[in-house]
């Protein structure tokens, strides 16, 4: 693993007038990581990326790359490369000129530029397009040019701002695998912004969840998925999202919709209202359990999503088989108890697993 490209953000605050884009952010990114910034639009993830790049100045706080305080440095001096969501290719230059532009700006001799450009283009498999203009390329090809432009000067840090969002679904899935492979091959620290949680989960080594300007949780995809720290994070990850149902916790008893459930563990802290989080995959429709009625069934080929009316709630269950249930059917559901999450009602923070 590479030893360069660590990023330390300390107490970063950014406001746009009355709107707080980032609230006191502290984040560490390790060298060589593929690190995702995940969150809905407006959550501050892109702002964070741009602050690392130097395209925006934080109101307060510091940015350090490899131990050096770069907070005041110009974007060009930070030794980072960025791929923009719109690629921002120079339309009046050829692909080769686009890629080689930065080398030209620092006065690299021409022969060297040509070599470096060819190498970078070969890495992303566009060496046959070097004489074309961006306008003549497809979206996928343009994206590779943007990548090649970033690769060519071997920066400390790669910053990718939703690079796949302009591609169609199939291409997106193919390309993200290639991106991960590329990153491994180049062994360069990468910060990757996306709003697509599936994308982040599949390619990131670690990720940070942003919601409304706050950093909610940092960890490996597995860790964040299986132990979300808050209701907000829990409901953001997973497709379909986690079911959230109000209930009451008291010691070992959980009361949901008037029904008493005995939990595997005892929880201290007295009787209190909680939010119960159950992933659709952990809802079972058997012959026994709590009463519910079928609201709607979605047949997805290999799986079935059953929308159930449970008391006053609508919850979803995901079944790994084809089950034909008609609307209005009365069924019995049960929860896979070890995987049930409990969150404090008021703060939304995680209490424990059931």
């Amino acid at each position, binding site marked *: 693993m590479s030893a360069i490209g660590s990023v330390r953000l300390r107490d970063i605050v950014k406001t746009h007038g009355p709107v707080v884009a980032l609230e006191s952010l502290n984040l560490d990114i390790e060298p060589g990581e593929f690190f995702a910034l995940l969150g809905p639009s407006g959550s501050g993830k892109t702002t964070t990326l741009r602050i690392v790049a*130097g395209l925006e100045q934080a109101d307060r706080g510091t940015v350090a790359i490899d131990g050096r305080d770069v907070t005041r440095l*110009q974007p060009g001096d930070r030794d980072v490369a960025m791929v923009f969501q719109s690629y921002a290719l120079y339309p009046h230059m050829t692909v080769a000129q686009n890629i080689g532009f930065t080398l030209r700006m*620092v006065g690299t001799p021409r022969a060297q530029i040509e070599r470096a450009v060819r190498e970078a283009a070969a890495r992303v498999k566009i060496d046959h397009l070097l004489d074309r203009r961006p306008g003549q390329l497809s979206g996928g090809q343009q994206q590779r040019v943007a990548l090649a432009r970033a690769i060519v000067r071997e920066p400390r840090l790669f910053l990718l701002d939703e690079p796949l969002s302009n591609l169609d679904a199939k291409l997106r899935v193919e390309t993200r695998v290639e991106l991960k492979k590329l990153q491994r091959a180049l062994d360069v620290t990468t910060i990757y912004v996306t709003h697509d949680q599936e994308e982040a989960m599949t390619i990131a080594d670690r990720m940070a969840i942003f919601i409304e300007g706050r950093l909610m949780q940092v960890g490996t995809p597995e860790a964040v998925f299986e132990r979300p720290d808050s209701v907000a994070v829990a409901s953001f990850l997973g497709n379909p999202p986690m079911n959230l149902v109000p209930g009451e916790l008291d010691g070992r008893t959980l009361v949901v919709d008037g029904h008493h459930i005995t939990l595997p563990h005892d929880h201290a802290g007295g009787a209190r209202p909680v939010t119960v989080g159950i992933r659709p995959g952990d809802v079972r429709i058997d012959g026994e359990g709590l009463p519910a009625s079928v609201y709607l069934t979605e047949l997805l080929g290999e799986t079935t999503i059953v929308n159930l009316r449970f008391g006053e709630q609508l919850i979803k269950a995901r079944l790994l088989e084809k089950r034909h249930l008609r609307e209005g059917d009365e069924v019995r559901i049960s929860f896979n108890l070890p995987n049930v999450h409990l969150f404090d009602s008021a703060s939304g923070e995680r209490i424990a697993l059931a």
Partner: protein
Amino acid sequence: MARVWPASAPARSRAWAGMAEAFKQERAFALLMVGPAFLVLVLTTTFPLCYLIYNSLYTINLSMPYLDGFAGLANYARLLGDARFWHALGLTAIYTTVTVALQVVVGLALALLVLAIPRGQWFFRVTAILPMVLAPVVVGLIWRSLMLTPKTGIVDLAAIALGFGSFNWLGDPTMALVSVIAVHTWQWTPFTFLVFLASLAAVPPDLYEAARIDRASAVRRFLHITLPLIRPAIVIVVILRVIVALAAFDAILALTGGGPGTATEILNLYAYRAAFIELNFGYGSALAATLLVITLVISGFLFRLRSPR
């Protein structure tokens, strides 16, 4: 192997590196870019305008220099009581409203017409450019000598041939005004035509189809869909043409010189005549300043019409 940070960017940036914030650097660059132009702008506009106002407060009569001296608002007082001024003002109002109205109506009608022609629109666009690129003064001269001369000008001959008889196009006060308005409209309607052609073409056709399905007649489609959608274009066009009409000079000078008498003497021309023919620069300045204020007021008013969109 220790990795080296990139050397600072080339010398030019290093010179700016002294400034702490990126924002400050941006400002310095902006000043460098905008500064020279702005300086020239200020010098070439503000300065003359101030000088204009200044002169309007003086009596400057090159034909009777012994009268020169500070006059305060005397020129303006004279202006208010000057029948010829009010006459000029009235003519300006007529000239402006009629030419702009004609330009808009004819331009729009023509655009609608041409839009309905499936092919060959480029031909109309090219022909439309012709009148606009000509110097207004040349246009005036041509119309005056070749078109409107009684008995030899084409327009007059056409009028005779059509049974209307000959007119003194430029010698008769009313006809002169008509001619001057006609020539201005002739030259500038292509502008409104082209603008309307573009904005009409930009209206999504689905709207018309939806209206047709709703059984709206062509007239109603025009009134309720087309007009509201091109309203911004109409407003802009009106503003631009009004400004140009208020400042129209060259063509009128070439056609009639402001005459016969003062029949086509819009305020513009009166100021010119007062200053350069009667050599009364003080009074001419006052007239010009008044026209200036009127232009600004009207433009400001029209611009405000534009804002709530």
